[in-house]
């Protein structure tokens, strides 16, 4: 008890101290910092906040190209565009890395419901990504509402046979960090087509995983297990429709009619785009990444156009400031992040095969909102090397270094013992738009987007200087 007593206050007072005396260098006594990090941070921030091109680039990517789902012409255009952008900022080393990409076509889709003996009514919906369809035929069945795992378990065998299961579990609004509530909801077995299929049900309808209170359906990737005997179609509906459907189901029997032509058509390849500024001192790699693909609805603005243009901004800024980087600073724009993750696996396999030494890997895939911190997925020892840098970040609103998971496209690099980090941004708005037609350019604020790029560039700078 006593021990905790001492350690906790020490930690807290450290936090306060760094706030109070930002002018004090955290460098060990006796060592003289080569750089005035506060000045260097300011230079980076001024360059980006006044001359940053990320916002205009995002306009081009979202309005000029739009959605860029794997294996579509949109993705091919985004590849050409990204290469052109890297060339424009003066990058010489640009290459493609082909990865497998599943071909899935949404096609036509519709959901109708009928309460009792009433009329059929159209409901806005989206098929799950990679879901099987109904081959264009009507699939009709009675809807059964399931709101929890215990409800599902309480069903007797056969009770769900040939039914259409409707899972109406909202994202928990009281969790402050919406990424946490999303992950919690997304992990639920209830929204697994594989789990639901085992009950004998014919199809799965879910309430969209969203913080919005509208009727926009949000896309979701499906998970079939290899041993699934049947692959049932799955789709999501907006929260308003979900609320209404729940209300109706409490009063009467509701029948659904699903018609989806969605189908998987094998594989093709899509490239990762890699661009780098080679190290002046060595060829160890600092890798920064974002996903170039998006869902096939909306414009892929906050998911993850913002990450793409921030990565470009980092390289542009290092060039504009004439920064002499010790290590190679590399950007990877990952293919197929949304419905397969083939791009990230390919990059990790490449790093392993080439035995390239990676000092650090960072991702930005949580929307172009105001930065708040970095999630540090690395050994506690290494994390402690980052903590003394907090004071430099604080004037930029970046204070939270306590999260420890990097889960996006850089996660396969964890197996290779590479220290990982992810930009942590304000999470309140992201899941209002995520994976939906609402994810458009106008949802992004220029200053918030640029400030994220500032924080990333500052972190890359610190790692390059110190590791």
């Amino acid at each position, binding site marked *: 008890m006593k021990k905790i007593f001492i350690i906790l206050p020490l930690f807290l007072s450290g936090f306060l101290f760094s706030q109070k005396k930002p002018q004090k260098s955290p460098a060990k006594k006796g060592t003289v910092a080569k750089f005035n990090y506060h000045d260097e941070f300011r230079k980076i921030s001024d360059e980006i906040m006044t001359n940053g091109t990320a916002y205009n680039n995002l306009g081009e990517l979202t309005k000029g190209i739009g959605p860029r789902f794997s294996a579509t012409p949109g993705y091919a255009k985004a590849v050409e565009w990204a290469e052109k952008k890297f060339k424009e900022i003066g990058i010489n080393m640009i290459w493609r890395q082909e990865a497998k990409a599943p071909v899935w076509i949404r096609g036509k889709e519709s959901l109708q419901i009928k309460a009792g003996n009433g009329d059929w009514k159209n409901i806005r919906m989206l098929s799950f990504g990679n879901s099987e369809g109904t081959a264009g035929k009507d699939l009709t069945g009675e809807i059964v509402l399931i709101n929890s795992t215990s409800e599902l378990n309480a069903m007797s065998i056969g009770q769900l046979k040939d039914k259409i299961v409707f899972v109406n579990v909202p994202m928990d609004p*009281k969790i402050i960090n919406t990424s946490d509530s999303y992950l919690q909801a997304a992990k639920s077995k209830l929204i697994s087509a594989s789990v639901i299929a085992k009950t004998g049900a014919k199809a799965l309808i879910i309430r969209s995983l969203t913080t919005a209170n509208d009727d926009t359906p949000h896309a979701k990737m499906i998970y079939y297990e290899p041993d699934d005997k049947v692959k049932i179609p799955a789709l999501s509906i907006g929260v308003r429709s979900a609320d209404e459907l729940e209300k109706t189901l409490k009063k009467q029997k509701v029948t659904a009619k699903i018609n989806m032509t969605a189908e998987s058509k094998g594989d093709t390849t899509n490239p990762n785009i890699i661009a780098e500024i080679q190290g002046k001192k060595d060829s160890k790699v600092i890798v920064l990444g974002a996903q170039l693909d998006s869902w096939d609805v909306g414009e892929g603005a906050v998911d993850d156009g913002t990450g793409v243009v921030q990565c470009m901004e980092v390289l542009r800024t290092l060039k504009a400031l004439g920064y002499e980087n010790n290590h190679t600073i590399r950007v990877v724009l990952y293919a197929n992040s949304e419905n397969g993750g083939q791009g990230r696996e390919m990059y990790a396999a490449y790093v392993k095969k080439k035995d390239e030494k990676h000092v650090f890997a960072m991702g930005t895939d949580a929307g172009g909102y105001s930065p708040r911190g970095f999630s540090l997925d690395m050994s506690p020892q290494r994390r402690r090397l980052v903590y003394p840098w907090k004071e430099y970040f604080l004037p930029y609103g970046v204070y939270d270094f306590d999260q420890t998971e990097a889960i996006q496209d850089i996660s396969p690099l964890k197996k290779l013992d590479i220290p990982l980090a992810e930009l942590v941004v304000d999470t309140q708005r992201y899941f209002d738009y995520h994976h939906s037609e609402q994810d458009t350019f106008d949802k992004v604020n220029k200053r918030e987007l640029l400030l994220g790029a500032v924080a990333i560039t500052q972190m890359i700078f610190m790692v390059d200087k110190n590791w």
Partner: protein
Amino acid sequence: MKKIIGTLLLLFGMAAFGQSKEDSIQFKKISTEILNNGKGYNELRELTKTIGNRLSGSEAYEKSVQWAAQKLRDAGADKVWLQEVMIPVWVRGKESLNIQTSNGRWKSIKMLSLGNSEGTGGKDVSGEIIMVKSLEEYDQLPAEKVKDKIVFFNYSFNQGNVQTFISYRDAGAYRRIAASLTAKKGGKFAIIRSLSSAFDDIPHTGNMRYDENISKVPAITIGNTSADELETLLKKQKVTAKLNSNCGMKGEKPSHSVIGEITGKKDQSIIVVGGHLDSWDVGEGAHDDGAGIVQSIEVLRTFKKLGIQNNHTIRAVCFANEENGTKGGKEYGKVAKENNEKHLFAIESDAGGFSPRGISLEMNEPQRNQIKSWLNLFLPYGVYNFEGKYSGSDIAPLHEMGVPTAELVPDPQRYFDIHHTEEDTFEKVNRRELLLGSAVMTQLIYMIDKNW
């Protein structure tokens, strides 16, 4: 040094253990109640969409007074009343700005008169535009170069500052004093580049004032795009401007601030939470400051709903006339003094309904340090910054009377894109961000009520 660490250790030791567990449970209850059941967002929709903008002296403002009183009653306030205050009446009327370049054609420019500015009495006033980039540059201009001219103050909002309020204050002088500066050297009127972080052509209005004994020439503002274009034109050629505007002051009239309170269980000392009910006459006054109003009402509602036994009286004040006079705040301070009311603390929310990041504290060091010692309670809600030392203009009179004051510090990146413009609409407010701000104010007031 050792001593400081020792004191801090002790302070944090107490905060981290002793009461802190109970407090962190209460913090969670507050945020859960607000994020699950908060009414602030729907109330803001009512205020912005059914009443809309509500400049002092307008019919809409009077409607918003009745609306706020009703909402405070709905929130469960023990007592709701209107506090009468004389407010200035300023009316915009029709207004237009045209410019003429050497090709002879007139072109209309999107503009807004600054609040409290005089107009041209509906007549055209025209003249040649001269541009200055800074006050220093203007100071150096001899009067004969300004006489009968129109002065274009083209000072840019500094995008480099992370804290946009710093850029806003930095550019603020241009809006406040440009008219009198222009008149002093015989200029006809002033055009000011808007105080805006946006990259668009939306003009941002705002308050200005006239020096005494100087003739009152009009002051108008134009958006960033128009300002850039005008600058480009002026570098190449002579440009004439023509202003026609009907705006002007129309005396004073009585209006009201709206007050609701939950009576203290232990004593009648007062904790104030507030925002301002008036807005500019463009847009819907959503972030400025509909957000602060509904957040303040949410604080009362949440105390009632959770049955928190407040020691002191907790009072929500919807101040009148913040934008062009701060008469509501001044009257509130005056009445508090006359009635010898003991105010323990006052906090205002007037920086938009964005995600909270901190609380700015204008008070003495021991008070500040005590609030800072609660940092670990606030961190899970994204609130970490207690370094600011300012507070809102409506509670400045209370501060002058020695009351510790504070202001909610939300994320500042988007505010000045829309501040004082037609773009300040309900759609720009995010429900979770707004509610989180209410949660943090409720949490702070809970702590103050318990500890002060």
